[in-house]
C-alpha cells in the first residue's frame, strides 16, 4: 500500500523560532489507509511538524503536496477544508455546551440564518457512531462526561469535519488502559475505511499495536523511517537519543554517605489520581533528579511537597521531624526551609511589571522588616549582594523585571529564594527556554549550593541535565516512581527506557498493573 502516491508529502520543511531550529529539512510521507507514528524526545520537533501540517504555523522553507498538488495553508481552517484535522493533547471542548454543540461547533448547519438543531443533532450522531461513541447522548453536557468519553467526543468532533488525514497528538495520554483499547479499535476501523492517521504517542506499546510505519525525529530532523516491527525498542531508543552536543557540567563530588540522615523524607505520598504512593529521601549535599516523560506527575510532586496542593496524604519529615506542610508560607518558614523554583517564571515566579528590586526581595521581605516596616537599606544591600552572587545583568534594580532577558529573569527567581538560605531546594525545569551560558551558571550554582549542604530536587525535561547534574535520578511514570538510577547507572539510554516504562534488560516487567491489556506487548516489539 505504501507504494502508491502519498496523500500528504512534506519536503524540506524548516522552521525557526528565534535562534532555535524547531525543524530542519524535515520530510514526511503519509499514505491513505495507514497509521504513521512519529517518535521523538520532548522538543524533537514533533509538535512543530504537526502545526505546519495543520496550518497553525507557516514553515520558513519547504513544500507540502496533497495528492501530488502543492498546497500551503494560511490557517487551520484552510487545512480543515483540505481534509487535515488535528486532535491536540489538551481537550478543546467547551464543558458547558452539549455534546452536539461541541461536535458541530465550528460550522453548524443553518436554516434561515439560525442553527438548525435537528440537522446538527443528526450530524453529531453520525460522527459519534463513527468515533465509537454510540452510547453518548448528543444532548449531554460535555462537562458531565468522564474524561475518556470526552476524548471520544473530541474524536467525533474531528470526524465531523470529514478528514482525510487525522492527526492525533498524544490523544491517549489522558486515557486509562480500557479506554485506550476502545480508541484503538476505532482508529483501526478508520484506517480500514481508508483514512490516513498520524499518531504521536510516548507509549511504545500503543505504537507497536497500531502503527504501520514509524518515523523518528531528533532535534528537528528526520532520523529514520521504518516499517513497524523492523526495529527493536532498544534501537528506537538509540535513534531518539543520538549523539549530541553535551553541556559542560561541574564535576560531581563523592555522594554523601548512605547513613547521613535525610533532610527530606517522604513516605507513601499520594494525591488524587495524579500521584500515588511516592516515597523518597534526599540527603544534605545531594542533587536528586526527577526524570520521566513530561506530565507523569513530577510537577504535582514538587507542588505537593511545597504545600500547594490540597488533599495530599502521606508523611513528610524534615530533618527527621514529621511535618505537615500546608502552604508555601509554611514551606519557606525557618522550621522547614524549603524553596520552590516554579515551572513558569512569568506567571508563578515573577511579578513581571514590578521592579527587579521588589521581585528579588519579595520572598525574603520578612527578613528585612521590623513590625511590617521595610528596612530599605538592608533590602537594597542584600539585593545587591544577590545580583553580584548570581551575576544578574540588569540596568539598575528599579527597572521592571520584564525588561531582563529570559536567563536573567530565571536568575532573579532563583536569587529571590536563595536570600532565605533554604536547606531544601525544589526546582521545576529551571533551565527551560534559557540560553546555554546561563544554563551552565545554574549548574555550577546547584553544585555550589549542594556543596554547602542544601538538599536539592531537580525536575528537568532535558536528559543531559539529569545525567550531568544529579547524583540520583528518580524516574516517574504515571504518578509514581518506577525506577531509581544512581551514579553511573544514569545514562540517556536508561533514562529513556525507564521513562517509556520498557525494560532494556529482562525482569522489569513487574508493577504494570495499571496498564494491563496493552502493556503486555511492551518490550516485546522485537
Amino acid at each position, binding site marked *: 500500500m505504501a507504494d502508491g502516491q502519498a496523500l500528504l508529502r512534506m519536503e524540506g520543511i524548516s522552521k525557526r523560532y528565534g535562534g532555535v531550529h524547531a525543524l530542519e529539512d524535515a520530510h514526511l510521507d503519509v499514505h491513505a489507509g495507514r497509521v504513521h507514528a512519529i517518535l521523538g524526545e520532548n522538543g524533537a520537533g514533533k509538535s512543530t511538524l504537526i502545526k505546519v501540517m495543520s496550518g497553525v504555523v507557516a514553515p520558513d522553507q519547504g513544500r507540502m503536496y496533497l495528492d501530488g498538488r502543492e498546497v500551503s495553508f494560511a490557517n487551520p481552517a484552510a487545512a480543515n477544508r483540505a481534509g487535515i484535522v488535528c486532535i491536540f493533547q489538551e481537550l478543546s471542548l467547551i464543558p458547558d455546551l452539549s455534546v452536539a454543540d461541541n461536535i458541530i461547533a465550528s460550522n453548524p448547519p443553518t436554516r434561515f440564518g439560525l442553527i438548525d438543531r435537528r440537522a446538527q443533532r443528526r450530524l453529531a450522531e453520525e460522527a459519534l457512531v463513527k468515533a465509537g461513541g454510540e452510547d453518548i447522548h448528543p444532548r449531554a453536557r460535555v462537562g458531565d462526561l468522564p474524561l475518556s468519553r470526552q476524548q471520544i467526543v473530541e474524536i467525533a468532533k474531528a470526524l465531523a469535519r470529514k478528514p482525510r488525514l487525522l492527526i492525533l497528538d498524544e490523544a491517549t495520554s489522558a486515557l486509562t488502559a480500557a479506554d485506550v483499547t476502545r480508541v484503538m479499535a476505532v482508529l483501526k476501523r478508520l484506517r480500514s475505511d481508508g483514512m490516513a492517521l498520524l499518531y504521536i504517542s510516548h507509549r511504545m506499546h500503543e505504537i507497536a499495536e497500531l502503527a504501520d510505519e514509524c518515523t523518528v525525529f531528533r532535534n528537528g530532523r528526520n532520523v529514520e523511517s521504518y516499517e513497524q516491527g523492523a526495529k527493536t525498542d532498544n534501537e528506537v531508543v538509540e535513534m531518539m537519543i543520538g549523539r549530541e552536543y553535551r553541556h559542560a557540567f561541574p564535576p560531581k563530588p563523592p555522594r554523601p554517605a548512605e547513613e547521613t540522615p535525610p533532610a527530606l523524607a517522604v513516605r507513601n505520598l499520594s494525591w488524587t489520581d495524579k500521584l500515588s504512593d511516592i516515597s523518597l529521601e534526599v540527603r544534605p549535599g545531594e542533587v536528586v533528579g526527577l526524570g520521566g516523560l513530561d506530565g507523569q506527575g513530577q510537577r504535582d510532586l514538587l507542588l505537593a511537597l511545597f504545600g500547594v496542593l490540597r488533599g495530599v496524604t502521606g508523611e513528610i519529615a524534615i530533618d527527621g521531624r514529621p511535618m505537615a506542610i500546608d502552604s508555601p*508560607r509554611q514551606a519557606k518558614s525557618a522550621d522547614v526551609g524549603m524553596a520552590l523554583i516554579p515551572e513558569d517564571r512569568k506567571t*508563578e515566579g515573577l511579578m513581571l511589571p514590578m521592579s527587579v528590586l521588589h521581585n528579588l526581595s*519579595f520572598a525574603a521581605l520578612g527578613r528585612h522588616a521590623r513590625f511590617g516596616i521595610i528596612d530599605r537599606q538592608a533590602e537594597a544591600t542584600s539585593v545587591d549582594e544577590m545580583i553580584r552572587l548570581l551575576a544578574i545583568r540588569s540596568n539598575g534594580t*528599579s*527597572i521592571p523585571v520584564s*525588561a531582563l532577558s529570559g536567563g536573567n529573569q530565571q536568575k532573579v527567581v532563583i536569587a529571590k529564594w536563595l536570600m532565605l538560605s533554604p536547606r531544601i531546594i525544589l526546582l521545576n525545569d529551571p533551565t527551560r527556554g534559557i540560553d546555554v551560558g546561563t544554563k551552565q551558571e545554574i549548574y555550577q550554582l546547584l553544585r555550589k549550593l549542594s556543596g554547602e549542604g542544601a538538599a536539592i530536587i531537580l525536575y528537568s525535561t532535558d536528559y543531559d541535565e539529569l545525567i550531568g547534574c544529579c547524583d540520583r535520578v528518580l524516574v516517574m511514570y504515571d504518578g509514581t516512581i518506577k525506577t531509581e538510577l544512581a551514579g553511573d547507572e544514569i545514562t540517556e539510554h536508561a533514562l529513556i527506557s525507564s521513562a517509556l516504562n520498557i525494560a532494556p534488560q529482562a525482569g522489569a516487567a513487574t508493577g504494570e498493573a495499571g496498564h494491563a491489556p496493552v502493556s503486555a506487548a511492551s518490550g516485546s516489539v522485537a
Partner: protein
Amino acid sequence: MKQDTATPQAPMLLHLRANLPIVISFACIILLLLLGSLYSENFLSPDYLIQQLKVASFLGVIATGMMLIILMGQIDLSVPWLLTTGAMMASAATAFGPAGEFLAVPFGVFCGFAMGMVSGVGVAYLRIPAMIVTLAMNVIAQGLMVAYTGGFSPSDTASSGMRYLATGNLIGGVPNAILVWIGIGALAVFVLNRTTFGRAVYAIGNRESAAFLSGAATQRLMMFGFGISGALAAFGGVLLAGYAGKAAQSMGDAYLLPSIAAVVLGGTSILGGRGNYLGTVAGVILVTLLQSILSVMQIAEFGRQIIYGLVIVTMLLLYGRERALR
C-alpha cells in the same frame, strides 16, 4: 522573544510613562479651573479652592480604600451602604451618653471594618468574585440599616466630635476634613511604599499566583484589604454625617462611581498591581472639580450626568490605549 532583547530604557523615561496619567490628571485640573474662571472669577479664589478641597476630602478618604482594593485586582461595590452604615452607627452611638459620644467615630468605623472583613472572607477564602460579594454586602448593609431605622426612631444627629472632624478648623483657615485626608493619605503612602503589607498588595495585584508561591499570606492580606476598605468607606460616612449634621439613608449613593473613577483616572490600573497614591489625589480633585463646574455652569441635572459619564469614559479610553501600546 521580545523580553529576551532587553531594551535598556532610561529609568527617567519609564518614570514619566508610568506617571503619565498623573500628569494628565493635574493638567486637566488646571484646564478645568481655567475653564471655570471664564464663567466666574470666584473660581480661582482661595475660598472656593479650599471649599473644593474640603468636599474632595470625603471622596479622598473613601477612594483610598477603593485604591487598595483595586491595586489588589479586586473591586469594592459595597461603598454606598458601608458608608451609610458608618454614618448611621456613629450617629446612633451618640445617643448613649458621653461614652457613646466619645466612641461614636471609632464605633462607626469599626462597623464598616467588620462588614468589609466579611466581604473579604467571601473573596479571599470562599473564592467568590468580589463583584458579587461586595454587591451582596451592599444590599445586606442596606437591609440592616432600613431595619434599624424602620422599627423606631433612632438618633441620627452627628456627635459634636464628628462635626468638629468634618467642619472645624484646627489650623487657621484649613478645614479639619482636609487635615484628616492628608493624614490618611500620608498613612496610605507609607503603608503602600514602606511596609511588607503594601509590597504584598502590589504583588497580589500583579500576579497572585506568584505572590502565593513566594509564601505571601495572600488570602489573609486580601481579607484585611476589604476590611480596610470597609473601614475607610464608613469613616467617609462618619465625616459626611458630621458635615451634614446628620446621617441619611441615601447619602452613600453618590460615592460609588466617583470613588472608582477617581482611582482609575489617577492612573491605577483597573486590573491591579500598578498605581500610586498621588494619582488618586489628582483623580479625587479632578472628579470633585468636574462635578462642581458642571453645577456652576447651570447645566440641567440630566445633562450634567451625561457629560460626567462621557468625560470619565473618554479619560479611561485614553489611558487604556496607552497601556495597550506597551
